[in-house]
């Protein structure tokens, strides 16, 4: 069987496997201490700036703390959690999160992979095309929101103007609950697909040219060459990318908040939007923290599933 492609090796196909320096007998004690000195700053930093706030957030989620009186919260056990799971609005936010994330991940993986395959061959203007295809990733989210809310503008936006000039119906993209989630997802896919493209492009360059040749000699067309030759090489990369895309979608805030604030009538109200609104609009810090913790648990579950699938696939490929 073919050797398994190392998922961690994207883009650095020629790297050497480092041996640990700490295995030589000289200066054992110093060697053992050295790595801890090197990571000390990062570890302390993570403990103080993410670990401590996270613990604080866990604690908050068990209290009834209010924004205007943040030190007077009383311990109320799991009441916030039990009230969340009885709350239809929260259930709806979970559904929105899952729909939004699934659509964004699938959309960006598809567009990104297609773009990477298109950019992998040689053609005139390739450098320029590639540069333009990376633009969306570089545009700051706040600027992207300004552009998209103008493009989506109901009366004067270019999207509606273009649609009506070819005889199609206009929509209130951001103000009509039927279309808002679609519009937000579209803007998100636009923003993140270049990342997928660049990752897949790097992985495609590791596919041996002889394999393509062999498939061509066998008479496989372009689509089948991709499916049988490139795809097996890409799968590990696509799995990692899908994981990153998913957990990033779960926590994506700016694009949704600034485009719609979760509205209209809750149609784009994802979990992180609820977390923010519960804290800063409804002043319920405790309940907001409980929502955030639920989100974190979801991301953790997804991550565990991905690693499990990844390992299962690795074992299968090794057989």
């Amino acid at each position, binding site marked *: 069987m073919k050797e398994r492609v190392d998922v*961690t*090796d994207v*883009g*650095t196909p*020629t*790297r*050497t496997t*480092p041996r*640990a320096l*700490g295995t030589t007998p000289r200066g054992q004690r110093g*060697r053992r201490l*050295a*790595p*801890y000195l*090197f*990571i000390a*700053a*990062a570890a302390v*930093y993570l403990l103080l700036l*993410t670990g401590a706030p*996270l613990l604080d*957030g866990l604690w908050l989620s068990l209290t009834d703390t209010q924004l205007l009186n943040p030190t007077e919260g009383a311990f109320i056990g799991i009441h916030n959690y039990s009230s969340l799971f009885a709350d239809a609005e929260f259930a709806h936010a979970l559904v929105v999160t899952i729909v939004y994330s699934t659509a964004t991940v699938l959309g960006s993986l598809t567009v990104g992979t*297609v*773009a990477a395959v*298109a*950019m992998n061959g040689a053609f005139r203007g390739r450098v320029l*095309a590639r540069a*333009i*295809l990376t*633009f*969306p990733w*570089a*545009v*700051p*989210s*706040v600027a*992207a929101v*300004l*552009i998209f809310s*103008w493009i989506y503008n109901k009366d*004067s936006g*270019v999207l509606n103007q*273009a649609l009506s000039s070819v005889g199609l119906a206009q929509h209130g993209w951001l103000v009509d609950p039927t279309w808002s989630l679609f519009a937000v997802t579209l803007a998100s896919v*636009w923003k993140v697909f270049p990342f997928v493209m660049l*990752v897949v492009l*790097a992985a495609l360059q590791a596919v041996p040219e002889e394999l393509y040749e062999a498939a061509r000699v066998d008479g496989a067309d372009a689509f089948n060459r991709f499916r049988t030759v490139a795809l097996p090489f890409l799968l590990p990369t696509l799995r*990692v*990318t899908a*994981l*990153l895309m998913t957990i990033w979608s*779960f926590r994506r*805030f*700016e694009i949704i908040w*600034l485009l719609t604030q979760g509205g209209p009538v809750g149609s784009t109200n994802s979990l992180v939007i609820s*977390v*923010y609104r519960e804290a800063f609009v409804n002043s319920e*810090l405790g309940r*907001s*923290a409980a929502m955030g913790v639920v989100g974190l648990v979801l991301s*953790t579950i997804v991550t565990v599933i991905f690693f499990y699938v990844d390992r299962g696939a690795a074992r299968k490929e090794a057989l």
Partner: protein
Amino acid sequence: MTLRKTLSSAVRGFGISLLVVVAGFPVYWLFTTATHTTAELFGGQVQWLPDLRRFLTSFTSATSGVPMLRWLSNSAVVAFGTTFLSLIIAILAAYALSRYRFRGKGVFGFALFATQMLPEALLVVPLYSIFLTFGLLDNLTGLVLSDTAFAMPVAVWILKSAMDGVSLEIEESARVDGCPRYAMLTQIMLPLIAPSIAAAAVITFFEGWNEYLFANTFITDEQKWPASKGLASFIGEFVTPLNHVMAAALMFTLPAIVFFLFVQRRIVSGLTAGSVKG
């Protein structure tokens, strides 16, 4: 056979053009909108082409009504601070992850990865109370600290994967030549991975440059707003003319596009490589 070939290359050409148009249009539209008056923009007629004569006036008027330059310079302060702090911490941590085996390495790597799962919306309230205690609210230093928490792990991945690519023999021969161990990182390793350091610098810079949620919550004094918050304040506000808003957004966007074009590849290989092994 030749017909099929022509056909498939036509399909391919069409696909590529479509992708380029879809990806590039919003940026083009940002530019075009910035060069038209509101009367033209809302006049019911789409202005497809930019009015180049109005290019400079849009920029100057965008900076006159609001403290846009001030906001941009605040963003630059936050971005430079985030870059500096993230790189120092990340270089050390990446060296340990790349060159040593030690107990707790897995946990440390997981903690780095976990930062990518944490919703900022959950951390923002606890951080707010921490910053309140230490007087870091309404303070650009506070933003540097919170942005670094998310930028630094990404820098560690990029740098670690670059360091993994440097052969151990180089360090060993340097040691034989009498290079002291503590100088190995600064004198041997860092010059060799300079391009990846540049990539990590760019990505951390723009983490600070683009960040909105923390800025929106921690900074209330308008003179201290970074540009992300300043620009967001135009959303849903109809006093500032749209072309001025777009010109301001363009000023905020251009540096990001220019820098990203230089380093995109290395960022990507580092991100995917690091996220699994940590």
